[in-house]
């Protein structure tokens, strides 16, 4: 079974979830998830709270363990093999809702830590790369500050830069803007859009429908641990097939 899946895994496939299930104790959080993400594809995941969106993308870099089915990232299947997990984590960047910057390190140190300790990049080189990415997210002047001294939007952009410093091939975003004040959302979204334009493979859990319309190749709707519907954004928003999707869309479009 595993071998068959491996041969299917083309170079062009970045992430593949095959019949994946997950339980929290007795609670069946993810039910038969099947998803193939091609290299360079941008996927937006939405759905009501508690539907398992975070859990799904956290399974992709093994922050959560799945119990059944297969997850293949970059041609490597996720098993209990710690080496493989670390290998995948190096290639997959993740941005969290609450930034999770390291408060005891400066912005620059946040960005250079993993390259230096994981990739063994020389310090000077790591710092140069970090400055390049901080410039890209438009906050090079904050490099020597501590995260606690930055605004939420700036912190989230540092978090994105920190991930990019590892040169990931895939980026996962878990509601990157939902802890931010409205005026800061667009600065983070702009960064993500420019990343998308450069061809990064991205999976974003977000309720920013404007963002979904501009960058997504596909929008996924999840409910109660299942992927209910997936379609290109135009189709998804204009002509949702399932009733639950219609209900969800009418709710968020009303409020938003």
């Amino acid at each position, binding site marked *: 079974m595993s071998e068959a899946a491996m041969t299917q895994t083309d170079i062009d496939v970045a992430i593949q979830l095959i019949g994946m299930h997950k339980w929290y104790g007795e609670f069946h959080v993810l039910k038969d998830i099947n998803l193939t993400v091609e290299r360079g594809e941008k996927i937006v995941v939405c759905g009501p709270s508690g539907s398992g969106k975070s859990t799904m993308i956290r399974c992709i870099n093994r*922050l959560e363990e799945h119990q059944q089915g297969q997850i293949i990232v970059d041609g490597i299947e996720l098993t209990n093999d710690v080496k493989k997990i670390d290998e995948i984590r190096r290639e997959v960047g993740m941005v969290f809702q609450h930034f*999770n910057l390291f408060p005891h390190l400066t912005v620059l140190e946040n960005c250079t830590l993993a390259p230096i300790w994981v990739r063994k990049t020389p310090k000077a080189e790591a710092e140069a790369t970090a400055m390049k990415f901080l410039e890209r997210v438009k906050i090079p002047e904050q490099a020597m500050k501590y995260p606690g001294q930055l605004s939420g939007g700036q912190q989230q952009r540092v978090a994105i830069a920190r991930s990019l410093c590892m040169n990931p091939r895939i980026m996962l975003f878990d509601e990157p803007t939902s802890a931010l004040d409205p005026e800061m959302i667009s600065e983070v979204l702009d960064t993500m859009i420019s990343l998308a334009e450069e061809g990064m493979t991205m999976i974003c859990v977000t309720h920013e429908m404007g963002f979904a319309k501009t960058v997504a190749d596909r929008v996924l709707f999840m409910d109660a641990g299942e992927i209910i519907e997936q379609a290109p954004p135009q189709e998804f928003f204009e002509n949702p097939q399932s009733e639950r999707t219609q209900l969800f869309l009418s709710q968020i479009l009303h409020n938003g």
Partner: protein
Amino acid sequence: MAIVKTERHEDLPPPVSQTGVIGWMRENLFSSPLNALLTVVSIYVIWGALSSIISYAFINANFVGETREDCTGTGACWVFIKARFGQIMYGFYPVEERWRVDVGYILAAIGLFLVLSDFVKNKKWPAIYTFVVVPIVCYFLFYGGSFGLEVVETSQWGGLFLTLVLASVSIFVALPLGIVLALGRRSTMPIVRMLCVGFIEFVRGVPLITVLFMASVMLPLFLPEGMNFDKLIRALVGMSLFSAAYMAEVVRGGLQAIPKGQTEAASSLGLGYWKAMGLIVLPQALKISIPSIVNTFIGLFKDTTLVLIIGLLDLLSIVKAGTTDKEWVGMATEGYVFVAAVFWVFCFSMSRYSIWLENKLHTGHKR
């Protein structure tokens, strides 16, 4: 019509209502009749206590002389401390070898200064010097037996010297061991976790005196014939393990205060368990635990006095032994006051250092 402000307000210094001594006193000490009354009563009490302490310890005290008979004033007889000063500092360490202890002090002081102060930014070499070189050199200095140094058996060690040896060895063993135990207690491996929980709960559940007693009396019963540890080493093992258990719980408290997101962020960047712990979680956990860690150090420092139960002559026991000397009957007060003062100086310095360190490591909005 809209109102638009065209000129910018200039920056002004803050109001000066609280300037001057008089202003400060009026504001803080005499703001209301009750406050004024409390101030007066407090000053009276403080003055009463301070003046009697000062007159006992300084004004009416006796500093000169050799024997008890020289103490004619009504205050403290510091002649007692002076006459036994060598013993109080070094125990029965031979007088002509005491320079070795002093050299050890100087080496350790230099190391501690480099590691603890802010003068050297890169702490790698100072840390290696202080935590590796100094202990080894001090062992050979204090114990001797090589490099042409005469052996000084640990039974001759005593006084403040012994107290400092006990305290520093247990502190330097307890912290790393405590960290390992705390990590073990949070481990996902059941065997490791059970071992750590078992050790911590057992050691925490018994008084230090019994640990010392067991280490010194019962341990030799279990060990094979001829394998007999030095009494000091047994005391050191007992104290280190005891404080490690406490330290483990302090560190665990700090670890629990670090949000899960920190480990997750570290993992998502590809850092393994040890790197995530060493670079991300522990630095933050130890930083917030500084007050409790130093609290444990201070407790440990004072607990070294319990070694008198197994017959080691630390600072307190040697002074106490001195007061039972026929020639110095009735000097107990002086002895205990002096011991208290010495302990206070060390503990207070640790406390001040921890406050300074906390401020230095603060990386929030304050800086």
